């Protein structure tokens, strides 16, 4: 008996010692890019087995809070920090990693295509349009016979960058929405069920007949949910795709702090609810080993990582943005010393 305990104890100590060589970097935040990040961290760990990046998708709100409190090594958010939040997280840097689309998904057996006008979408989420065969919906879908099922609205129950993007769009196209719930990572929803994370909303829509929800494109595709065709700023009906999302970034100049909104952008092929998603890291990394590894990972993500984006329906960053990010990364320091200055 004593021998068993001794051996077990030794095994534990050895495994502890072995894992002591491996670096563990903790991050938390957005669920929006989670399918892609999940792949990135796994790929990166295969190439660099000593670097383990543990990412928990708790929502952009969580990412912002935890990096502000410094309980994690990096955060992730699709919602750029507000000025107030920036003030609390002195020295934080936004780093755009990829672009994605917020799509509208629904659960109506037999209905695989749907056109939803911006004002109709606002009306649904305001709780004004309550049945699927409402004239507003029927008008844009003349070829379909929509059922009289009640619409069950699904939204996020947690602080969400996806919500921020979605409500940003609704605020631009609906004055009533802007005056009411408005834009934010967390708003006062007039109607509907709350799901936790993009995962939760997708789950609710999948399991509830008559439900409608907004999720990131990757979640819709991975769950074989049809996505709605939306009318964009130019009046064209567009579906979310890598091309239509990239088009959304084409016309916008990226500001120096990277905080930008690309919803409802002009252009014939532009998807109206597109967005950048960001990693949140402090400009000066204090932990030498972690900071060095983290910055190297981000460099990898901005270059090699972009190849994985398309397969998961995210749009890789435009070349101009990558170039700008390179300059930013080169200026970031670990304990005062820049580490990527010579990287290409």
């Amino acid at each position, binding site marked *: 008996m004593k021998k068993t305990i001794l051996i077990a104890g030794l095994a534990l100590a050895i495994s502890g010692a072995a894992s002591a060589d491996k670096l563990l970097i903790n991050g938390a935040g957005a669920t929006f890019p989670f399918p892609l990040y999940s792949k990135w961290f796994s790929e990166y760990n295969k190439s660099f087995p000593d670097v383990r990046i543990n990412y928990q998708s708790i929502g952009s709100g969580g990412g912002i809070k935890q990096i502000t409190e410094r309980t994690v090594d990096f955060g992730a958010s699709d919602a750029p920090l507000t000025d107030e939040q920036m003030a609390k997280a002195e020295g934080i840097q936004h780093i755009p990693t990829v672009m994605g689309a917020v799509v509208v998904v629904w659960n109506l057996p037999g209905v695989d295509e749907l056109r939803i006008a911006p004002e109709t979408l606002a009306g649904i989420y305001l709780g004004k349009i309550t049945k699927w065969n409402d004239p507003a919906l029927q008008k844009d879908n003349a070829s379909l016979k929509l059922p009289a099922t009640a619409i069950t609205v699904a939204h996020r129950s947690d602080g969400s960058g996806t919500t921020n993007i979605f409500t940003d769009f609704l605020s631009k196209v609906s004055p009533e929405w802007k005056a009411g719930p408005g834009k934010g*990572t967390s708003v006062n929803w007039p109607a*509907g069920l709350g799901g936790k994370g993009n995962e939760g909303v997708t789950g609710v829509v999948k399991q*509830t007949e008559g439900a409608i929800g907004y999720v990131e494109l990757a979640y819709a595709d991975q769950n074989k949910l049809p996505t709605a065709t939306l009318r964009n700023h130019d009046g064209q009906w567009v579906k979310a795709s890598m091309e239509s999302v990239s088009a959304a970034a084409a016309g916008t100049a990226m500001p120096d702090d990277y905080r930008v909104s690309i919803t409802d952008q002009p252009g014939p092929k532009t998807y109206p609810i597109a967005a950048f998603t960001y990693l949140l890291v402090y400009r000066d990394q204090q932990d030498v080993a972690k900071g060095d590894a983290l910055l190297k990972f981000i460099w990898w993500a901005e270059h090699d990582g972009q190849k994985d984006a398309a397969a998961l329906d995210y749009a890789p960053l435009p070349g101009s943005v990558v170039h700008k990010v390179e300059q930013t990364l080169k200026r970031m320091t670990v304990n005062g010393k820049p580490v990527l200055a010579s990287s290409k």
Partner: protein
Amino acid sequence: MESPSSLPASDLTLAAGEPGRAPEAAPARVNLPDRAWAVLLTALGLGVLLVAAVIVGELWRIGAPAISHTGLKDFVTRSTWDPTRDIFGAAPYIYGTLVTSAVALVIALPISIGLALFLTEMAPPSVRSVVTFPIALLAGIPSVVYGLWGLFVLVPVLRNRAEPFLQRTLGFLPLFQGAPIGLGYLAAGVILAIMILPTITSISIEVLQTVPGSLREAALALGATRWEAIRLAVVPYARAGIVGATMLGLGRALGETMAVTMLIGNSPTIRASLFAPGYSLPAVIANEFAEATGALHTGALAALGLLLFAVTVLLNVVARLLVRLSRRGPARVRA
């Protein structure tokens, strides 16, 4: 516990069985290990006090600013919860917690008491010893597993069978109106009922077992049927304790987090229909705490936690008092 050296001489003499013989003089030196042991035990006992003080203190420290910002009355009665605008009205969460607990009690109470009566009064003792095992099993199943079962079994059943049925038969009541989506107050209430059933049952069984057999026998001797004996002799005696058992079950229902979060729909609204999605105090804390930026938002959630804590503590204390009173004698407390 007193050491031999500190007992008065007369006691020791009696204990020794030889009257008149004086005890040996107590050792002059201080018994250090005994002292250390006493100190250690006292410290651990005080540790419990410290833990409670720290919990209450921390909740108060973070939560008080949020309550004073909103005002206690508004905090509890307003129904708009908008953290981005620093507006905190907790009414939807309080409402949701109360409604789901009420539904849980309405369902669980008759079943628990019926079950307890069956096991103590009606079934042979062998049945009782066999059935206590599954009841204990029910009590030990983690909340998240109940939530899992609820999501994939209960919700579809509610959405496709039970709620439409209720709507067809009792749809004139506002309680059963609106689209059946499965998730909502009813789903959370049913899962809570299942979760508090073992608590109420086992404590009721305990209470019923303390009823003196003579009471039962007296009633039976006077010609009562078994049910009449139960109704007239046993239950009045055990009434306070059963109320206590119910309160303990209620206390558990109020604090349940995971199963409720997974089934209640997470909608911060107040609706009359049981089919509607809602929110509860523990659920909103679970969903929003990790991302609450700003002292006010965090404080508001901590204040919700403090409110919940206060109510469950009150219930627990009163409940245990009732159970203890019931054990000591017939129910003097008008429950």
